[in-house]
């Protein structure tokens, strides 16, 4: 009873978001454990945006004490927390936002944790690093890359926002594509559908019945009669058929993105360690290559249409039953696969397989480049940088500036322009950093002085980047919608943004 009450109250509280990602998306959120490194203003804002929709747990890692400046720009820290550990203070206040979420904190710097217990980070569904020094970022990046834990790097600098997603492989079953075409198989009707279409004899029907025949049947009948030049009836369902014919008659074939997944090495070589996504992908591939005769499992849904209930439900059942049958065949393949390396068949549920089959045409795999690849002289994406820098005001220049600022920090242990009296000096120093960066990477591009001046001005924290960051975090956690790949830059002065693959 209390269990149900609890469930109902959650349904109520999360009503407005369940409508976006469904209860299984919510379940994903509730099972997630997110690690935040550094409870800065941006960091706590991101976490706030994850605590409100109800992630399962968070852990803040932060070795800093709360300073006066923190209290000034961080809504969740008050002057009474000055001097306390920042991880603890932020945890306490964030926890208040949602009692369903378990909040934890570690009063230690990420570097120390990396020294003593790098495996500490393996347990998380996602690690979010905020305002990390370059060296920490690279170290942590490599630990997480090897462990297969997604890593979201966020920083705000002046009026610049930066996000970088680092995930070796992120699979998405429900990509929620815009304007997905229906899967009606009208070009190649399956046997049951053929029989169902045959059961209609439009010519001998009464007007009432005739005008309540689903348009799918109308189109199918039309296709049957070759050289048909009959005039469509003046009935709503015929109008609907005409309206829908362009999108309904799409050739049934395996989309290239799904084909790529079938051909991926992970799909080819299934092991006992393979994530269920790939096991199911293999199962669907087996289906396509055998029983499916080159076609994906039937999706099993049809759009709403003018029809009476009875006819509609019968037609819907034809598709639904076929989808169930196809999914059952896929299940068999999956089962066999699991058994071949001694795993119980129930390790992947019937429901997961059904969802997978239903979305087989929309599967996505996002692969980001690692930070190591981005930073290495041999593998950095020179083309992307130089081609973007053809226009001197591309957001790419912000990326180069951030890299230069990191260099500055490495050399001077502080960011440029922190002290007013040093601004002039810092401009020159930062210029040197820019030049050495460009030289080192043999980048023949021009960074305008304006940007160097801009980056020497006092930093002004932005908290709204946190909204976008949390949004990406939710995509990663729920495995729904496609996250960006892999670098996002935002310029608040011009209100422009861009994504790059670095």
């Amino acid at each position, binding site marked *: 009873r209390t269990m149900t009450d609890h469930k109902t109250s959650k349904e109520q*509280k999360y009503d407005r978001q369940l409508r976006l990602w469904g209860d299984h998306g919510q379940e994903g959120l509730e099972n997630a454990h997110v690690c935040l490194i550094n409870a800065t203003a941006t960091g706590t804002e991101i976490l706030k*945006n994850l605590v409100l*929709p109800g992630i399962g747990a968070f852990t803040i890692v932060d070795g800093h004490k709360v300073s006066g400046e923190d209290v000034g720009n961080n809504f969740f820290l008050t002057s009474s927390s000055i001097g306390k550990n920042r991880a603890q203070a932020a945890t306490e206040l964030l926890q*208040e936002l*949602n009692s369903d979420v378990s909040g934890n904190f570690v009063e230690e710097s990420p570097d120390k944790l990396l020294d003593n217990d790098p495996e500490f980070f393996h347990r998380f569904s996602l690690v979010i690093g905020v305002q990390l020094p370059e060296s920490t970022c690279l170290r942590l990046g490599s630990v997480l890359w090897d462990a297969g834990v997604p890593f979201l790097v966020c920083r705000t600098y002046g009026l610049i926002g930066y996000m970088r997603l680092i995930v070796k492989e992120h699979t998405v079953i429900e990509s929620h594509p815009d304007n997905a075409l229906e899967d009606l198989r009208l070009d190649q009707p399956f046997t049951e559908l053929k029989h169902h279409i045959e059961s209609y004899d439009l010519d001998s029907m009464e007007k009432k019945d005739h005008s309540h025949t689903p348009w799918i049947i109308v189109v199918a009948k039309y296709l049957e009669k070759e050289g048909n030049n009959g005039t469509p009836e003046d009935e709503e369902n015929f109008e609907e058929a005409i309206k829908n014919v362009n999108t309904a008659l799409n050739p049934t074939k395996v989309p290239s993105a799904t084909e790529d997944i079938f051909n991926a090495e992970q799909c080819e070589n299934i092991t006992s360690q393979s994530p269920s996504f790939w096991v199911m992908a293999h199962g669907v591939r087996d289906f396509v290559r055998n029983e499916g005769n080159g076609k994906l499992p039937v999706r099993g849904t049809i759009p709403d249409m003018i029809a009476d*209930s009875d006819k509609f439900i019968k037609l819907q059942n034809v598709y639904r039953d076929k989808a169930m049958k196809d999914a059952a065949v896929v299940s068999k393949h999956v089962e066999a696969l699991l058994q071949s390396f001694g795993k119980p068949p129930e390790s992947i549920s019937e429901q997961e397989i059904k969802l997978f089959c239903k979305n087989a045409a929309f599967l996505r795999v996002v692969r980001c480049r690692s930070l190591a690849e981005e930073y290495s002289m041999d593998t950095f994406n020179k083309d992307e940088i130089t081609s973007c820098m053809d226009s001197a005001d591309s957001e790419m220049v912000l990326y180069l500036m951030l890299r230069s600022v990191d260099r500055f920090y490495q050399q001077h242990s502080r960011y440029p322009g922190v002290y007013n009296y040093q601004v002039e000096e810092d401009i020159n120093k930062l210029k040197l950093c820019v030049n050495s960066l460009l030289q080192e990477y043999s980048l023949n591009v021009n960074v305008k002085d304006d940007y160097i001046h801009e980056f020497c001005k006092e930093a002004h924290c932005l*908290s709204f*980047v946190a909204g976008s960051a949390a949004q990406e975090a939710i995509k990663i956690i729920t495995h729904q919608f496609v996250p960006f790949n892999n670098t996002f830059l935002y310029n608040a002065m011009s209100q422009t943004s861009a994504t790059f693959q670095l």
Partner: protein
Amino acid sequence: MKVMELAESLSSCRVLVVGAGGIGCELLKNLVLTGFKNIEVIDLDTIDVSNLNRQFLFQKKHVGKSKAQVAKESVLRFCPSANITAYHDSIMNPDYNVEFFRNFQLVMNALDNRAARNHVNRMCLAADIPLIESGTAGYLGQVTVIKKGQTECYECQPKPTQKTFPGCTIRNTPSEPIHCIVWAKYLYNQLFGEEDADQEVSPDTADPEAAWNPADAAARATASNKDGDIKRVSTKEWARSTGYDPVKLFNKLFKDDIMYLLTMDKLWKKRKAPLPLDWTEIHHLEFSQEEACGTGLKDQQVLGVQGYAQLFHRSVETLRSQLIEKGEGAELVWDKDDPPAMDFVTAAANLRMNVFSMNMKSRFDVKSMAGNIIPAIATTNAVIAGLIVLEALKTLNSEFDQCRTIFLNKQPNPRKKLLVPCALDPPNPSCYVCASKPEVTVKLNVHKTIVQALQDKILKEKFGMVAPDVQIEDGKGTILISSEEGETEANNNKFLSDFGIRNGSRLQVDDFLQDYTLLVNLIHSEELEKDVEFEVVGDAPDKAPTPSVPEEGKNIANGNKDSAQPSTSSKAAAEDDDVLIVDSDEEPSSSTMEASPESSNRKRKHHGTDTDDAASKRKRLDQQPADDDEDIIALD
């Protein structure tokens, strides 16, 4: 950076935040963090559980309290030095006059309905105070800046009006689930709420399509006499006389009324005739495929006829006792977040869908449609509130040329932009609100339009006025409508023609509060379409399915609460006339919700790089997300 110099002036600057919901909470936080010290916030709404997933200034213990007040207290806890004034009130209250607006350097809207947006737009124009307008719907959001004489105002471009349904579709011949849902909400008001003659639920004998043959009268009489007392008394009176007996109600609504409809046989020549339900019979029927479709949450399951009949029974009993508890003459107010009210509408709508051979819908889906719910999440509001502050800083610096309309996409568009800034357009010289001499032409039938309809449907609802005064430009200055109580009520039920109004007449309409004068040119027409009372010339007659909306019936996100009345006011929810169509399928309606703004995104994707052109922007503006805040709507 000018921003930094500006920071010092922020502490002396006074700003008004209209709305303390999803965007409002985020915005208040951002404002104090940016250094704003003097903030006034107004919201007439109280806190609901479904706000808690994003309105982070509120906690469970605050449910039922004033949003503005709690928001103020929560912000002060974190930022005790701020000077915040909270008003638990409607911004449309005459206390907030032009003088009030002049107290501020900047007004920021964080609203959820078009009526309030229109009103604040006019107040800011009248007071010449810059306004930042914003909205979110699901993953989508938008921010824009409005400055008198320099930019378009909120009303410079006509917005699509909401789809309404003809009375006879609702009462006689529903063909889509939404028709049944609207009917069920009308029924709720007829039975438990405020009765409204425009919300009849019984068969409409005047349906022109039925073209009554007097000879049929006998058949009708027999049909309607089955229950003995189906006289044309009000539904509420009748229900009360039965003591709100759920079984009697059931049989009247789903059997007797339907049998009555069946006698109007012309209606069923081309349609499938409805199938009456009988309380006793359905309980004897074996439902072989009483399948609970949709797994997962209870709300997302579709019950069978028996299940909905039981739900109907239970909810009528609950609502009856609520009514009794409230005492004599009390009325209930429909609220989508009130479980018995929602149960009632779910049950009644589904039973009617069954009668009319439609596929029944889950409670979750019915709620989407009945409540015009726009999904709302913390992240989008956070992004938008951040953008508002940035535009605010530029606005306070009078850098209007730097200000932008910014759209937030669901995912990076083909040009890899998540945020799309567009330059602001200059005012539309023929805008009926911000032009120097606003003028508009309305086509109507002067012999059939009564003064009351002119006031309520045209001036208030269509042109967004609060308390209009109307003078006929007939050389005599005849006062047709006065906003002073008791002065012109006698005119209300007279036709316009009774006052000598004819083709070419001009009306001078004044709204004192909004400091707004509009000249209305009238064109007499006898050829308006069925169910159309008036048409604004130059306004496409029915904008509901705009070209950018892929399919009729998927037209939600824009308007949802963009109805004529403040959605948060429960009174209004009962008065408003419009309904938005929302379609939904078994997916958690996300796809549906996003349909329209997304499609407008598509329209924009080919445009220029930095700032998109005005035409494309307009498409999007038409689809202005309604904002999250409270996602109610004012349906009926």
